């Protein structure tokens, strides 16, 4: 909202300097987004009378003009043609710097000297009109030699650009801002006096007012003016509207807008003679009813939209015959707007249900100055003053206009003022202050909260009706505390650091998730963050088969689904960097992917009614990594998995290729594996290499790309995935003995099962089993390979003899032969 200081000063004698006002406004919660100084640069512009106009030989775009600026005649060269001899026009004398920064010098054009400049409204920063001079003829107080600013009543002004929060409908007008400032600076505050002489016939004889939907429109008032002459607004009003950011239209519409800016109450003027039948009827829209609004768009009403609480209830304003002429509280209709020819004006001033306005405005995507105010809440008792004020301004701008006697006033259920019994201790308990009841009352009183002592530290507070944001008890106590804090000054409230006995900390999961990141960083991987909103086709191309969770209202087709995997984002990240000739690419991401809701899980509460609830999408927190540096492959990814397992003491991870060759999405079918915890435990992730076709399709790398993905909620879950014990195991002080065995094993038997067999037979004396060589080829036989293990034997209490070692070795080999069909080579 743009608030000119001069307008604010109508209500209170505000004298503080601009910096102090900015600080005060900020501290009152009326956030100053900008400060603009206007109306300066007019000091040396004077009103002058045109004495003489003559052509200049050889020039048809400029003329020689002699003007009387209240002294010696001045010769000017002028390019405007919208004036005549005897007109009054503004003259900027030599040396003037105009508001737009232009400096006026003495110039010679075609042999004629120009000793200044005659100015347009735009050049003076007073209007948008740059077509011709600002002609002042007929302006009260305009005479040769009078400073222009004085003639127009323009003072240098300051315009504050304010953001008013949604809970402060009262402050969304000049009077409201001034009220807060007056309270802060302890100044008297008063609304403008409205005295209305009702000279016209009784309003009942001219129009009717009926409300069929009092729930949507709890109060409707109608006033009528006749003998109105529609024309431009007085200059002072037009100027204030411009400063406040509104375009002047005509004296009737402007008066309505002016009052909205001044008092916060929207009103709507109709041409009474263009209404099908004189009067207004307010009703619910029929389903599918079409209303053409002032902007010429046909709006379909009465049809529920999507979403919670949507009833499809719209409030239409109709003429007395029930023909719609506007959407209540939002937009007027085109058929009855004020025109040049209007002589009789019907003024609608009403209160509307804020929630209904909000729903209609949202559904129709139609937000106006009026709807924005009504949806925040307008004082239903401010209507009278606002309507009278509009009438007063119209009459002032259209001499001869008459206000019909009386007002049509249809009232439904209007709220009665909220009364709250407030204890100072309740305020102090929320704010940490030590205010007394009288101090609280002194803060609340000036902004319209009537406070009366109620014994002890209590007062009874009557909430003004322009504060619909303040709720009844008990919640209203907090609302009052906010008002107290605001006027007391947030900056004056003490700062205290609370302490409590419980220590802070991360959960084990959170701490270990950090260690996962650190391990991958230690392996040369850079952490990335890719978007959770993806193109589901990217993931379909990877072979992701689980259906996506889609977004109802995406911003773009390629961000219309939630990611089911991080693979697409990582592939795109590789491609992005590869396109920019970046090497050594190992990237990882920790984050959530979304799978469809699981109906076997308990539902989540969806709304206030409780009800059956809804199943939310399954969120899986993953770490995914791609290894695309030179020479990277599945083995590098696997070593990363081992590094993670080491760091987190994860004991027994097993790798299994996907059964029956069904490829994991996006993965190389014969160089990838599912990672399980133990031989039969849960799946914790996948490891291996990306399918070269996928890598090529995304342009992600030129060589192999290793892949690792772990479901962190499983991987780090101690009940699901076993960890190495944290109990210290003594180290033997006796020498160990190594024995190598090369075993020929069927390709179908994973090497870890062979190691299991060896380990089982070796028992406690077998300190370690390490695979150190793999050989396929002549001498091993087709479909088999030779696995060379190093067995290290050691006893805690003695040195093992050669015989013992030999016997252990034989036992291990026999077990491998029995359990996995190995044969010793």
């Amino acid at each position, binding site marked *: 909202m743009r608030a000119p200081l001069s307008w604010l000063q109508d209500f209170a004698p505000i004298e503080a300097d601009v910096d102090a006002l900015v600080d005060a406004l900020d501290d009152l919660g009326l956030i100053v987004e900008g400060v603009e100084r206007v109306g300066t640069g007019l000091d040396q512009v004077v009103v002058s009378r045109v004495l003489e106009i003559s052509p200049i030989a050889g020039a048809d775009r400029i003329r020689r003009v002699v003007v009387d600026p209240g002294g010696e005649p001045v010769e000017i060269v002028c390019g405007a043609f919208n004036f005549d001899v005897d007109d009054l026009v503004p003259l900027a004398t030599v040396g003037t710097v105009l508001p737009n920064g232009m400096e006026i010098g003495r110039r010679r054009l075609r042999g004629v000297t120009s000793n200044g400049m005659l100015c347009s409204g735009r050049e003076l920063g007073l209007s948008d009109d740059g077509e011709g001079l600002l002609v002042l003829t007929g302006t009260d107080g305009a005479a040769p030699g009078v400073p222009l600013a004085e003639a127009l009543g323009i003072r240098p002004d300051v315009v504050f650009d304010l953001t008013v929060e949604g809970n402060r409908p009262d402050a969304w007008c000049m009077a409201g801002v001034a009220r807060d400032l007056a309270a802060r600076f302890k100044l008297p505050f008063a609304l403008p006096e409205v005295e209305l002489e009702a000279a016209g016939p009784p309003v009942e004889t001219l129009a009717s007012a009926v409300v069929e939907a009092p729930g949507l429109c709890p109060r409707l008032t109608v006033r009528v003016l006749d003998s109105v002459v529609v024309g431009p607004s007085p200059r002072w009003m037009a100027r204030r509207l411009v400063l406040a950011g509104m375009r002047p239209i005509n004296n009737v519409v402007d008066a309505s807008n002016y009052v909205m800016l001044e008092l916060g109450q929207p009103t709507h003027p109709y041409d009474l003679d263009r209404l099908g039948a004189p009067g207004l009827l307010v009703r619910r829209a029929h389903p599918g009813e079409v209303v053409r609004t002032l902007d010429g768009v046909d709006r379909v009403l009465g049809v529920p939209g999507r979403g919670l609480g949507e009833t499809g209830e719209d409030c239409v304003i109709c003429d007395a015959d029930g023909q719609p002429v506007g959407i209540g509280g939002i937009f007027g209709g085109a058929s009855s707007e004020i025109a040049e020819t209007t002589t009789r004006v019907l003024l609608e001033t009403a209160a509307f249900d804020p929630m209904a306005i909000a729903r209609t405005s949202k559904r129709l995507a139609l937000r106006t100055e009026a709807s924005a105010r009504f949806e925040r809440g307008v004082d239903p008792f401010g209507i009278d003053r606002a309507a009278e004020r509009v009438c007063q301004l119209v009459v002032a701008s259209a001499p001869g206009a008459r206000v019909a006697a009386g007002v049509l006033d249809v009232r439904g259920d209007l709220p009665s003022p909220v009364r709250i019994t407030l204890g100072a201790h309740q305020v102090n308990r929320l704010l940490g202050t030590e205010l007394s009841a009288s101090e609280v009352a002194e803060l609340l009183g000036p902004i319209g909260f009537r406070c009366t002592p109620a014994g002890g530290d209590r007062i009874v507070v009557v909430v003004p009706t322009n504060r619909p944001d303040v709720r009844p008890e008990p919640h209203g106590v907090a609302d009052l505390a*906010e008002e107290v804090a605001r006027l007391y000054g947030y900056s004056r409230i003490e700062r205290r650091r609370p302490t409590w006995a419980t220590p802070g900390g991360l959960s084990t999961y959170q701490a270990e998730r950090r260690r996962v990141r650190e391990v991958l960083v230690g392996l040369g991987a850079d952490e990335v963050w890719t978007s959770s909103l993806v193109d589901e086709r990217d993931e379909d191309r990877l072979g992701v088969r689980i259906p996506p969770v889609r977004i109802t209202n995406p911003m773009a087709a390629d961000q219309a689904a939630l990611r089911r995997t991080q693979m697409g984002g990582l592939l795109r990240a590789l491609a992005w960097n590869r396109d920019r000739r970046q090497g050594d690419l190992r990237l990882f991401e920790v984050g959530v992917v979304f799978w469809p809701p699981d109906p076997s899980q308990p539902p989540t509460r969806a709304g206030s009614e409780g009800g059956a609830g809804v199943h939310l999408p399954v969120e899986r927190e993953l770490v995914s990594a791609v290894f695309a540096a030179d020479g990277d492959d599945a083995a590098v990814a696997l070593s990363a998995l081992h590094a993670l397992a080491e760091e987190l003491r994860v004991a027994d991870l097993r790798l299994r290729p996907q059964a029956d060759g069904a490829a994991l999405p996006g993965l190389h079918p014969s160089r990838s594996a599912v990672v399980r915890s133990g031989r039969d435990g849960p799946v914790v992730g996948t490891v291996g290499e990306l399918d070269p076709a996928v890598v090529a399709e995304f342009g992600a790398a030129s060589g192999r790309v290793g892949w690792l993905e772990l479901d962190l909620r499983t991987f780090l879950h101690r009940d699901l995935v076993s960890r190495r014990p944290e109990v210290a195991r003594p180290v033997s002080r006796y020498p160990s003995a190594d024995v190598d065995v090369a075993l020929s094993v069927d390709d179908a038997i994973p090497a870890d099962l062979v190691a299991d067999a060896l380990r089982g037979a070796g028992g406690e004396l077998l300190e370690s089993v390490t695979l150190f060589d793999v050989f396929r080829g002549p001498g091993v036989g087709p479909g088999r390979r030779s696995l060379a293990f190093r067995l290290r034997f050691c006893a805690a209490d003695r040195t093992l003899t050669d015989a013992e070692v030999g016997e252990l070795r034989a036992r291990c080999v026999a077990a491998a032969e029995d359990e996995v069909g190995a044969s010793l080579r």
Partner: protein
Amino acid sequence: MAGSGASDPNRTLGDLDALAAAAARTIEQASTTAELERAETATLGRRSPLAEARRALGSLDPEARREAGRRLNDLWSSLEALVARSRAELARQERVAALVADRLDLTEVVLATVRSPLRRGHRHLVSTTRDALEDVFVAMGFQVAEGPEAETDWYNFEALNIPPAHPARGMYDSFYLEVGEPETVVLRTHTSPVQIRLMEAAVAADSIPIHAVIPGRCYRRDTADASHLPVFHQVEGLVVDEGITFADLAGTIETFTTAYFGPKVHARLRPSYFPFTEPSAEYDITCTLCLGAGCRTCSGTGWLELGGCGMVDPAVFAAVGIDPEVWSGFAFGFGIDRCAQMRHQVADMRSLLESDVRFLRQF
């Protein structure tokens, strides 16, 4: 009706069928793409029997020619389709064979032989910022809590005192998900729903007080620009305890801003509006660029906006069943990305989401 002479149409059609059957056999026998190329030339090439037969059509009488021509075209296109099918199948088989030949049994990788370059990677700026902020709050006695990114309307809005069609919803332009009834499930627009989950859980377990910070990813339907991303990260704080006041809130904000941004950075609170706090405040911190002197970044004010806060609204306590006569609390929230942007003077927020290693490796 029986025809006479050399142009017996039945005989011609029979010949064509036989030729086509032979051609199909040739195509089907091809077991490599190279063989298929040869089979295609042999059966459908310029010198194939079928091509000869097409050229021979000219010698038939018009009616027979039309019929035989139609049959030949049908056979021709079905053979072409067969070639295409075979080609696709052979390509698939060859791809599978190549992948199988490329086989690596991950159980037999000898880890000792895997070499890895000695380069350390870099954490993402947002993720290190989150950790640093968590650490500040942990040191102040906060637990770290988390919650789902897809939320119901109840948790994201209604329990936070933002009923359907509440004008404040305009502050949170939401992505709705195709889950459940229309507009019942949203991508959370802030981390505040976790406040509700924490309070509900604490009520159920009779374990109030709560001292928690809640970091996480949020979503708003805003077009990305230099200072906004539709996907972004927030930290939320929630304290519910006995005797908690606005003074404690102001002190907490001051403590963490100074702890995170350094001793020269302070906070100021201004009245604001959030449906789930009352009184509400926005807080600014000393401009990190000019340290309060005033510069272009802070529009000469010396302050930068950081986040919002306030005392937990009694309506929120009512929604979760906490007695506001016994407990009081405060909540605050701010952007992790914005913190990172302010502390490291990141000109364009979008660089956080681009995954460009030239950006990432600076941090």
